[in-house]
C-alpha cells in the first residue's frame, strides 16, 4: 500500500507519536497536502506551538474551526479558500459546548458551567485533552462536512496515551463513581451500612466541606457524564473503520520514540485500529545522494589552512555518513515492522523547525510522493 492512497482515500487520519517528535508539524503537512489535492480538510490540533498557529494564520482557543486565510493558502499553492479549516482545540471550550448541547435549558447549562469543580476538572491537562480530541473528531465525522479530518493527538510522553485516554476518562465517568457521592440511590440495609462506611472514608479523605462540594457536583453532572461516557466509547469505536480511518505514527530516530512506535503499532493491531503508516521524522535517512567532499577540493596545492580545513571536514563527513547509515537501518526496521498494510516514509530534519509554509508544503510533498 502506498501513502498517497492512505492519505487521500480516508476520512480521518490520526497522527500519533511521543512528545517532541514533530507530530503536529507532520499532521499539518498532511492536511496541507490533501487540501492541495482539492480535498476539503479540517486540521484538528491541541496546543500547537505559537509559530505553527501563526503560519496558519489561525488563533488558538477559538470556539470552532476557522478557515485558514486565503493569503496563507495561496502561499501553499491552494487557490480555493474553502479547502482548509483549522481548529486548535481548547479542552475547556469543547467541554462547555458539550454541556450546552446536553443540558436541559440554557439556564441549567449556565449553572453547570459555572460550577467550581467543573471548571477545574474540564480544564485539567491530562485525560481531558484526549477525550475532547476524540469528542470533537466524533462530532465532525458524523456531520460529514469535510472530506478529510487530520487529528493531531494531544501532546504526551507516550504515543499510546491517546488510545488509553478515553478509556481512562470512561472509567472516571463510570456510573459506579456516582454511587460514592449519591448514596440516596442505595436502598437495602446492607447497602446503607456500606454507604455509611463510605461516607466516613470520604469525609476523612476529602474533608467534610470538599466532600459536600463533590456530592453537589456529581449530582448536577450525572446525566451529562453518562452522555460523555457513551460518546467516548462510540468515538473510539468509530475509529476502527479501516475504510474511513488511518492511524499514522510519527517517530524520531531517538531510541525512546522508536520503541514507542513499535508498541503503538502492536497496540493498534490489538485494539483493532487501522494502523497505516510510520513517519521517521527529522532523519538523515531521507538525505538524497550526498557524496564525500572531493579530495582535490582546494586544487593540487592547498595551503596549510586549506589542508587542515579539508581534513577536519573529512572527519565530519565520516561521522555524518555513519549517522546516515544508522538512520537508514532504523527506517529498515520500521519497514519490517509496518508489514504489507502500512507505509514507511522518512522526512528530513529542517533545522529551522519546519513550521513555515514552505517547509510544510515540502514535507507534505514528500509524504504524498513517497511510493508513487
Amino acid at each position, binding site marked *: 500500500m502506498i501513502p498517497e492512497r492512505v492519505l487521500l482515500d480516508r476520512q480521518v487520519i490520526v497522527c500519533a507519536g511521543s512528545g517532541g517528535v514533530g507530530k503536529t508539524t507532520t499532521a499539518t503537512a498532511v492536511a496541507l497536502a490533501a487540501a492541495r489535492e482539492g480535498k476539503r480538510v479540517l486540521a484538528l490540533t491541541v496546543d500547537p506551538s505559537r509559530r505553527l498557529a501563526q503560519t496558519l494564520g489561525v488563533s488558538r482557543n477559538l470556539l470552532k474551526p476557522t478557515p485558514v486565510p486565503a493569503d496563507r493558502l495561496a502561499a501553499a499553492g491552494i487557490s480555493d479558500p474553502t479547502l482548509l479549516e483549522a481548529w486548535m482545540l481548547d479542552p475547556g471550550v469543547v467541554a462547555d459546548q458539550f454541556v450546552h448541547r446536553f443540558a436541559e435549558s440554557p439556564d441549567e447549562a449556565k449553572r453547570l458551567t459555572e460550577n467550581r469543580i467543573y471548571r477545574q476538572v474540564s480544564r485539567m491537562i491530562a485525560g481531558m485533552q484526549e477525550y475532547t480530541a476524540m469528542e470533537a473528531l466524533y462530532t465532525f465525522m458524523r456531520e460529514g462536512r469535510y472530506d478529510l479530518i487530520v487529528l493531531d493527538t494531544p501532546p504526551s510522553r507516550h504515543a499510546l496515551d491517546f488510545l488509553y485516554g478515553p478509556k481512562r476518562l470512561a472509567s472516571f465517568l463510570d456510573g459506579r463513581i456516582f454511587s460514592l457521592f449519591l448514596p440516596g440511590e442505595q436502598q437495602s440495609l446492607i447497602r446503607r451500612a456500606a454507604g455509611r462506611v*463510605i461516607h466516613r472514608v470520604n469525609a476523612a479523605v476529602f474533608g467534610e466541606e470538599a466532600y459536600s462540594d463533590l456530592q453537589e457536583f456529581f449530582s448536577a453532572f450525572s446525566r451529562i457524564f453518562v452522555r460523555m461516557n457513551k460518546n467516548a466509547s462510540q468515538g473510539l469505536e468509530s475509529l476502527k473503520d479501516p475504510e474511513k480511518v488511518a492511524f499514522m505514527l510519527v517517530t524520531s530516530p531517538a531510541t525512546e520514540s522508536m520503541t514507542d512506535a513499535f508498541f503503538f503499532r502492536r497496540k493498534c493491531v490489538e485494539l483493532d485500529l487501522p494502523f497505516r503508516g510510520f513517519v521517521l521524522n527529522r532523519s538523515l535517512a531521507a538525505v538524497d545522494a550526498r557524496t564525500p567532499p572531493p579530495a582535490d577540493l582546494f586544487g593540487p596545492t592547498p595551503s596549510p589552512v586549506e589542508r587542515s580545513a579539508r581534513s577536519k571536514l573529512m572527519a565530519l563527513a565520516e561521522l555524518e555518513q555513519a549517522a546516515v547509515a544508522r538512520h537508514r537501518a532504523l527506517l529498515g526496521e520500521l519497514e519490517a515492522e509496518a508489514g504489507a498494510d502500512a507505509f514507511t516514509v522518512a522526512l528530513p530534519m529542517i533545522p529551522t523547525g519546519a513550521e513555515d509554509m514552505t517547509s510544510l508544503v515540502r514535507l507534505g510533498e514528500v509524504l504524498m510522493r513517497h511510493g508513487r
Partner: protein
Amino acid sequence: MHDIFGKRVALITGKGGVGRTTVSAALARAAARRGLRVLLLEIGEPDGDYTPLARIFGRETFPAEPVALEPGIHGCVLWASAGHEGFFRRVLPVSALVKAAMGSGALRRLLDSAPSFREMGVFYHFFDLLERKRPSGEPLFELAILDMPASGHTLGLTGLRERLLSLMPSGPIADVLNEGKGYFHDPALTGAYVVTLPEILPITECLELIEGLEQHGTPVGGIVVNRVLPDPFTPQERAALEPYAQEPWYGMERFRQVPTAARALERLRQSTTVPIHEVREVPLQGRALVDAVAESLAEGAR
C-alpha cells in the same frame, strides 16, 4: 548548577527527545560519586511495560519501593495508587477503614482517573519517600532526582498545589499539600532543571517552560544544554570552506549547524539569568554516554 548537590530535590524536565532521561541518570551518578544517598524517581504510567530510565540500569521498570541500583543510588517509580494508599493510612483512624477505602472500587477509580487526584497520589508517594528517615534522624535519601514526564505534565504536577487548593481550600488534602510545599516550591530544597538542545525551537520551548514553572512558583535551578556541538574549525578554516557551504557533501550539514547552534545558545544566554550548563555531544550510547554526561555535570557543579 553549582548548588544542585545541596538540595533535597532535583526535578529534571524538558521536551521529549532532548536527553532528559540520560541527564537524570547521569546526575544520579554524579551525586552518588560525591557520597550522597540518591533516590532516582520516575512517574509510573499505567500499561508501561518498560521505561528508558530503568533500562539504563539494566531493568525493565522500577518497583514502587526503593531498590538499590548501584552504590549510592536507589530507584523507585512513583505510583498514584501507592500514594493514595499511604494517604488513606494517614487520614483514616482505623485500619478497617483503610481496608474499606482500598476495597472501594468506586473511590479507587475516582482517585486514579480524575486527573488532579492521580497527581495528588503521585505527589503523596513522593512526599512520603522524602520524609523517610534513618534511625539517626537524617533523611534516608539526601537527594531525590525525578525524571519528569513531557513538559505539559511537568506543569500538571508543579501546578498541582494551586489547582487542588482552589478545588479544596481546606481539609486533609490541603494539609498534605501545605506540608510538602517546600519540596516543590522552596528554592533551598528544590530546583527544576530544564534539559534542552542548542537548536532554535528547543531553546524557545525551554524558555516557555521556564516561564510556566516560574508561574507555578517552582524554582528553576538550571538549564542543561545537551549535545552541544564543538566547532573543530578555526575562523580561517571556516572562511576557506564557506564558499562550499551549500554543496551536497557529507559533513556540510554539520559545518552549517555549528554556527546556528552557537547563535541559539547565545540567544538563550541573553534571555535568561538561570545558570546554564553545556554538555558536549559525544559519540556514545547507553551507560558510556551516561558516564560522560555525569562527568560533565560533576564539573559544572564543582
